[in-house]
């Protein structure tokens, strides 16, 4: 169950990374299509990252001499990771709920007081979640997997940001002064 929840959170995080990378890089008024694409791109990249982790996991399990112990260790680690990522995700989702209210003040307030601080906290939360998950872990494979997950979380954001920056540069007028 905790693995499924972590998968859902990874997909959501990827989608939001896509959104953040795209934000401020299009000057159109109607950006529904633009943001839909950005969300899908982020979620899609998260699937690749998850698949990579899954392949490594299968590989580790296949070559482990103490498979049941490793499985137990991985389960305990994922539960600990959820204790950090879960509340963060709940706050973000609740803020989206507030945005449904038809008030520009409420919507602006969620940007300033919730999404802004959550964006600032994301690297810290990503790091804290993995550290809390793997520090008490008994197996070295669990720790390696945790470090790989953390690297992928930052990697996904960096790649999406770079891609969005390149696309923005390409869509700027080549010679604006004419």
């Amino acid at each position, binding site marked *: 169950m905790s693995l499924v929840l972590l998968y859902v959170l990874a997909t959501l995080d990827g989608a939001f990374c896509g959104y953040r990378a795209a*934000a*401020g*890089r*299009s*000057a*159109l*008024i*109607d950006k529904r299509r633009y943001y839909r694409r950005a969300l899908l791109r982020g979620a899609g990249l998260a699937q690749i990252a998850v698949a990579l982790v899954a392949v490594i996991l299968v590989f580790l399990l296949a070559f482990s001499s103490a498979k049941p112990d490793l499985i137990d260790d991985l389960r305990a680690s994922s539960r600990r990771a959820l204790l950090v990522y879960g509340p963060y995700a709940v706050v973000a989702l609740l803020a989206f709920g507030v945005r449904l209210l038809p008030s*520009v*003040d409420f*919507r*602006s307030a969620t*940007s*300033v007081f919730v999404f*802004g601080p959550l*964006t*600032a906290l994301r690297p810290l939360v990503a790091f804290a979640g993995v550290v809390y998950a793997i520090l008490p872990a008994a197996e070295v494979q669990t720790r390696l997997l945790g470090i790989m997950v953390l690297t992928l979380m930052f990697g996904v954001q960096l790649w999406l940001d770079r891609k969005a*920056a390149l696309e*923005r540069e390409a869509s*700027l*007028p080549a*010679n*604006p*002064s*004419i």
Partner: protein
Amino acid sequence: MSSDNPEISDLIVDFDPESLARLPVSQAAVVERFQRLGNRRAARVVANMPAKDGFLDAQAVDRLLIRVHWEMQRLAEEFHHGRRLRELLLPGIHVLRMRGIGAPIRVVDVGCGTGYAIRWLAMHGALGDDVELIGADYNPALVHEAERLAAIERLRCRFVTANVFRLRQPGHVLFTTGVVHHFRGESLVDFFSEHNRSGAQAFFHSDFQPTPLAPLASWFFHVLRMRTALARHDGVLSVVRAYSAQQLLDAARRGAPGFLCGTYGSRIWNTPMPRVFHTLVGIRPELREGFLDALGWRRHRMGDIR
């Protein structure tokens, strides 16, 4: 940062105020000015800009300014600036119709940049077919970009490189967003004097509201949301330079005695909590009652208008 400091974007472009011709800008002079003011960060930003023969490369500057305006648009989107502006424009236009101002009623964004507000109004404003939306700016690169973006989305609005107060067909309603703090000292009063002389019937000037926490909040917001050094620097400085409601009212009443003035939307609901933006409203005396009536349930957001 001090409110006496100019913003980087104020100094890296220059236009002849009469002909609007682009004037070359000496990189060394701008860097030296910032250094003299003790603003090393701004000096560094300008020193890193491409230059040719000692003058800032106009094309690179324009590309940078467009990039910055794209980023700034995000701020307007997050604060739902279009909707807030529409709250004032609808009653303003309504009262002009009631007073028999013939079509088209011209609504002009003064210093429109890449035209976000005008383009938003064209797409979502539903102001009526008798309303003409015009964006005006001194910088032709920003105007071209606004035109390009409006054409992509087939929006019914137009943009001009012009001094708004010299337009052959003057605007009936003028508005700005984040512009008035660029006018320092007496030039703010002069800006309002131009309103007084023009055929404008109403104006709505939105800008940051200076509060003790605003610079810190602005710094945090810009660090998170803005990517270019120029946007981060100027965004935070804009808040530092923003005028209080009283300063705006004093300047507007001195410069434009033909208008009744007040501030709109300074507080969130009826609490002492300030909104990030407030709007200076100016309206010709004969339009006052009709405008206040047309505000409807939002009338309580309008301060004393006199």
